[in-house]
């Protein structure tokens, strides 16, 4: 039966835009502006979902984004919240987590056996015998969870924007709008956000039988529209509070990260359900939900209602029900005193009976628990919180409208570090000590009377403006309550239970009692044991009642119980929104395009992309690498080393600086020569290495490894601050390209591109000079990392391509080929050079790596020196050695990280590098071994993947025979 009312002034529906959709296979009509739940309710549907644990039928509870029992799937998406999601034309909706549909859910039997599933039952069963747990676990996992994830759901791009404002106001209800209006004339930049589709908050639904709210809202919005410095964003929720007033605002389209100078939280309060048997049946709903249905969606909550109230809101809702033509059978007021406000007479005059000091003892379910058929009413003793059954009677009705109190929507205040106190006169937690720049107003501040809320909004605006440095008069608010907006203990016990506190998790009063009796009588323990507040609504309708129950159990005041910690997010927030674009920065050398065009296989080296090797038609990876390596050994090869760190150290104290920073000696270094530069940390661990080129007396040019360059430069800067030497540091890593040309033909090729003599006398190993190559100003370094004859050229990054091309052209005849990092690894291994990061790890010190030669112990100071002095006196645990496998080894492949096993069966070390060298004709590598066994020719055992032992022998380096020039 349709519950849709004729058009109402307050409604959000677009009557001229009818739409249709499907729910559980049935077709329904709705209007644009409906939510899924409002459309179904208007169509007379009551069973909108099933509860998570007991599979009880559920309908509308709050219509405020915590009706988490109404979760839907549309074939693409799942866990869609019916109470707030706009219904769209053509939607095909089904309810999640049912077995056989929402009406015929086969799992509904669980409700009948709920008594054998007491709180925490799963801790007490299924674990013995151990072997059966996987069986039970499988069943438990399948029955848990809500919707089924769609593995084909498209990856959505949601933009995340930063924005900044002077004042962010959260909540566009009467309080927030008033605050905005008060602040607007003072020239501050204001953003107002509200999660609802339209602004107004309670003004948009809490009519209380008059059109005053609507008029006030229209006035406020009209006034506010005059200020260009105010932005009002609806359909936008504040998802959390983060340090220094960073608040992400979530909308369908994306996230706006607002950095505000001041924040007014006017987020209102969540209405809390009174707790009584069957308070979860479809047709039992919060007063504000009924009002939302009536005002926004022109839909009757029911035809014939019993209002179960303990505050004024119930009476206001009764007025709205009456105005909409709903029969109000009675108002059942938990309070012996009843309601003091003037609405009482108006309601009585319309023939509604009011029972004070009474309760709804239980709700009588309609067939299949699909709705309500009546309410059992009896007297209630407020002091003992006991129903008095002697005078009970039944009223037939199809709806229970309940209103017993509130919990502040204070999540963001808590997250910001607000100290809260329990305001007894309002029976509510309210802010006591707010962090700088945070302000709270309205219901969240414990103020409910509309006139007082408006005042409170003005007060918060005045305080925020003062905080922002504006001169404004202060505003005071009288916090007065004719009656408390919240009841201190709106619970009605029932021997048969099913008086629900947490609708997400189907937790009723007895569960709390049992949990407390088992020792979980601290609010946090109780939460964890009962799972109260851990469901998708995160306790929005349950935490406050749980606290009240625990306080009663422990006979403590509510404030002694405290609250559980509020954490982001205020509402569950989609991963796609939070992820945004997902930026992954990477660096490329200017040769990258060439590498791509020549079939390079790239590898990530830190933030860089580097060619690992180049594909060649008909060649497997390993073969391609061998060919690249053989080219270097037999003719020439070249590699893009533009990614190397390039650091300039200049000034009168440059050599002194390097002596302290690196392990070697640099004061004696000659201009035009290079030296090995090894960097340790203060614990003596090897961090990085490179070469230091002395360009002038006061000018060194240093290379650092690709991955460590930024960190090495940063450390140089920091130590320079401490040492205060007369040095200037320049990081030119990106400014220069780098090319390493290696192999016997290298000199010949290069000599055709430069006038600089390249012979051993003019440019010996370890020499550096500035010259021109192919017309490009270049720094030329004679290096030996991958080959005994190699030239490293550093040229302006924009010219690297020109030099690369020139080398290729000139070297084509000799067989010059490019090679990548995989080949470079093999080549340096053949040369007997270890690699920091590959042959060392995060704790390797130079004695283990055999790098003592790079250390000038006699210097007055270098980083790590004092630690090395200590380490030097300790026995060495392992030592890196070069090794070979026997000639013609054909056995199982030895892999890097295979272990070196001693005669005692213990681990002595591991293989850090191994490769078959086509030049040497056997397997060569580096391994950590027992330091007592490092002499050339000493044998040790390596254990293969399959567990067999293979003998290796310590070898001399370089592995390759140094070759004369081709």
């Amino acid at each position, binding site marked *: 039966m349709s519950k849709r009312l004729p058009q109402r002034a307050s409604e959000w529906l677009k009557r001229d835009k009818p739409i249709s959709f499907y729910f559980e296979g049935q077709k329904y009509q709705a209007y644009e502006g409906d939510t899924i739940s409002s459309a179904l309710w208007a169509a007379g549907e009551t069973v909108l979902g099933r509860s998570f644990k007991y599979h009880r039928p559920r309908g509308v509870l709050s219509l405020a984004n915590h009706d988490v029992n109404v979760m839907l799937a549309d074939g693409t998406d799942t866990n869609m919240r019916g109470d707030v999601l706009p219904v769209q034309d053509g939607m095909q909706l089904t309810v999640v987590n049912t077995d056989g549909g929402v009406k015929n859910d086969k799992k509904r039997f669980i409700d009948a056996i709920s008594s054998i599933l007491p709180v925490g039952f799963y801790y007490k069963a299924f674990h013995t015998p151990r072997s059966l747990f996987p069986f039970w676990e499988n069943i438990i996992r399948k029955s848990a969870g809500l919707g089924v994830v769609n593995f084909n759901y498209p990856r959505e791009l949601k933009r995340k924007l930063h924005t900044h404002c002077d004042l962010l106001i959260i909540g566009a209800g009467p309080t927030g709008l008033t605050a905005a209006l008060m602040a607007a004339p003072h020239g501050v930049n204001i953003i107002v956000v509200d999660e609802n589709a339209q602004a107004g908050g309670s003004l948009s639904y809490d009519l209380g039988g008059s059109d005053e709210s609507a008029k006030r809202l229209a006035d406020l919005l009209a006034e506010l529209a005059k200020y260009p410095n105010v932005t009002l964003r609806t359909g936008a929720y504040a998802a959390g509070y983060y340090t220094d007033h960073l608040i992400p605002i979530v909308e369908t389209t994306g996230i706006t990260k607002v950095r505000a100078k001041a924040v007014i939280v006017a987020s209102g309060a969540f209405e809390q359900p009174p707790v009584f048997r069957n308070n979860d049946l479809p047709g039992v709903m919060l007063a504000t939900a009924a009002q939302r249905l009536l005002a926004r969606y022109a839909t009757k909550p029911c035809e014939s209602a019993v209002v179960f109230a303990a505050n004024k809101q119930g009476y206001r809702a009764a007025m709205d029900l009456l105005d909409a033509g709903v029969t109000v059978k009675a108002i059942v007021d938990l309070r012996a005193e009843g309601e003091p406000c003037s609405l009482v007479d108006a309601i009585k005059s319309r023939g509604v009976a009011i029972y004070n000091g009474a309760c709804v003892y239980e709700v009588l379910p309609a067939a299949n628990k699909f709705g309500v058929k009546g309410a059992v009413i009896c007297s209630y003793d407020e002091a003992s919180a006991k129903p008095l059954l002697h005078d009970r009677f039944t009223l037939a009705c199809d709806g229970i409208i309940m209103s017993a109190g509130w919990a502040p929507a204070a999540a963001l205040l808590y997250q910001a570090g607000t100290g809260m106190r329990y305001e007894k006169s309002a029976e509510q937690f309210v802010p006591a000590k707010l962090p700088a720049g945070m302000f709270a107003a309205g219901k969240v501040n414990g103020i409910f009377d509309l006139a007082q809320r408006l005042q409170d909004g003005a007060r918060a605006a005045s305080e925020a403006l003062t905080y922002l440095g504006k001169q404004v008069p202060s505003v005071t608010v009288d916090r007065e309550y004719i009656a408390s907006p919240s009841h201190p203990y709106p619970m009605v016990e029932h021997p048969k239970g099913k008086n629900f506190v947490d609708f997400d998790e189907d937790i009723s009063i007895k569960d709390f009692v049992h949990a407390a009796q088992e020792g979980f009588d601290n609010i946090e323990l109780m939460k964890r044991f009962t799972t109260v507040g851990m469901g998708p609504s995160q306790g929005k309708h349950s935490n406050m009642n749980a606290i009240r129950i625990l306080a009663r159990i422990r006979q403590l005041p509510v404030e002694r119980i405290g609250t559980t910690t509020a954490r982001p997010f205020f509402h569950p927030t989609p991963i796609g929104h939070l992820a945004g674009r997902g930026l992954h920065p990477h660096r490329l050398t200017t040769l990258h395009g060439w590498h791509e065009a020549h079939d390079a296989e790239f590898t990530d080296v830190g933030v860089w992309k580097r060619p690992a090797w180049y594909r060649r038609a008909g060649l497997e990876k390993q073969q391609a690498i061998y060919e690249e390596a053989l080219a270097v050994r037999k003719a020439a090869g070249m590699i893009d080393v533009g990614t190397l760190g390039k650091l300039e150290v200049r000034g009168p104290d440059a050599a002194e600086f390097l002596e302290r920073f690196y392990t070697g000696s640099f004061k004696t270094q000659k201009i035009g020569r290079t030296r090995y530069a090894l960097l340790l940390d*203060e614990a003596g661990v090897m961090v990085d290495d490179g070469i230091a080129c002395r360009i002038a007396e006061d000018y060194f040019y240093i290379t650092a490894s690709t991955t460590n360059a930024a960190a090495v430069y940063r450390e140089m*800067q*920091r130590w320079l601050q401490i040492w205060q030497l007369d040095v200037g540091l320049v990081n030119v890593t990106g400014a220069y390209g780098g090319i390493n040309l290696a192999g016997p033909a290298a000199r010949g090729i290069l000599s055709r591109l430069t006038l600089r003599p390249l012979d051993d006398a003019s440019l010996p190993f370890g020499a550096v000079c500035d010259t021109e190559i192919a017309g490009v100003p270049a720094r030329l370094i004679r290096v030996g990392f991958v080959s005994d004859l190699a030239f490293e050229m550093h040229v302006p990054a924009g010219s690297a391509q020109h030099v690369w091309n020139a080398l290729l052209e000139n070297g084509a005849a000799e067989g010059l080929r490019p090679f990548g990092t995989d080949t470079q690894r093999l080549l340096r291994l053949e040369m007997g050079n270890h690699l920091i990061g590959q042959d060392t790890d995060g704790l390797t010190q130079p004695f283990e790596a055999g790098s003592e030669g790079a250390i000038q112990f006699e210097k007055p*100071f270098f980083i790590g020196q*004092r*630690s090395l002095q200590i380490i030097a006196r300790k026995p060495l645990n392992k030592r890196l050695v070069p090794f070979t496998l026997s000639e013609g080894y054909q056995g199982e492949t030895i892999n890097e990280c295979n272990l070196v096993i001693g005669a005692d069966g213990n681990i002595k070390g591991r293989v850090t590098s191994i490769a078959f060298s086509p030049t040497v004709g056997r397997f060569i590598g580096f391994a950590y071994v027992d330091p007592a066994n490092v002499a050339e020719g000493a044998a040790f055992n390596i254990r293969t993947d399959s567990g067999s032992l293979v003998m290796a022998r310590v070898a001399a380096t370089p592995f390759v025979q140094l070759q004369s020039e081709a």
Partner: protein
Amino acid sequence: MKLLTCPVNGTRPLSEFVFGGEIRNMPDPAQASDSAWAAYVYNRTGAPGLKKEWWYHSPSGTWFVAERNTLTDQVARTYLYGQEDKA
């Protein structure tokens, strides 16, 4: 995200900075005992409180000192190393 004020570039989100740890005074390597030196290398003032720390503003390459309470995460002041008096 937390904001931090670089003495040269102004107030920026934390993502622009690299944390350099507590500023610790190095004992004289020539004088310090092995255990005193090891304590300098490894031990830290782990308890919460106001500490002087190294922070680095990446886009400009600026090291500076922040006096920060590690319990409340409140920064009392920032200044360039050696310019404490001018802060």
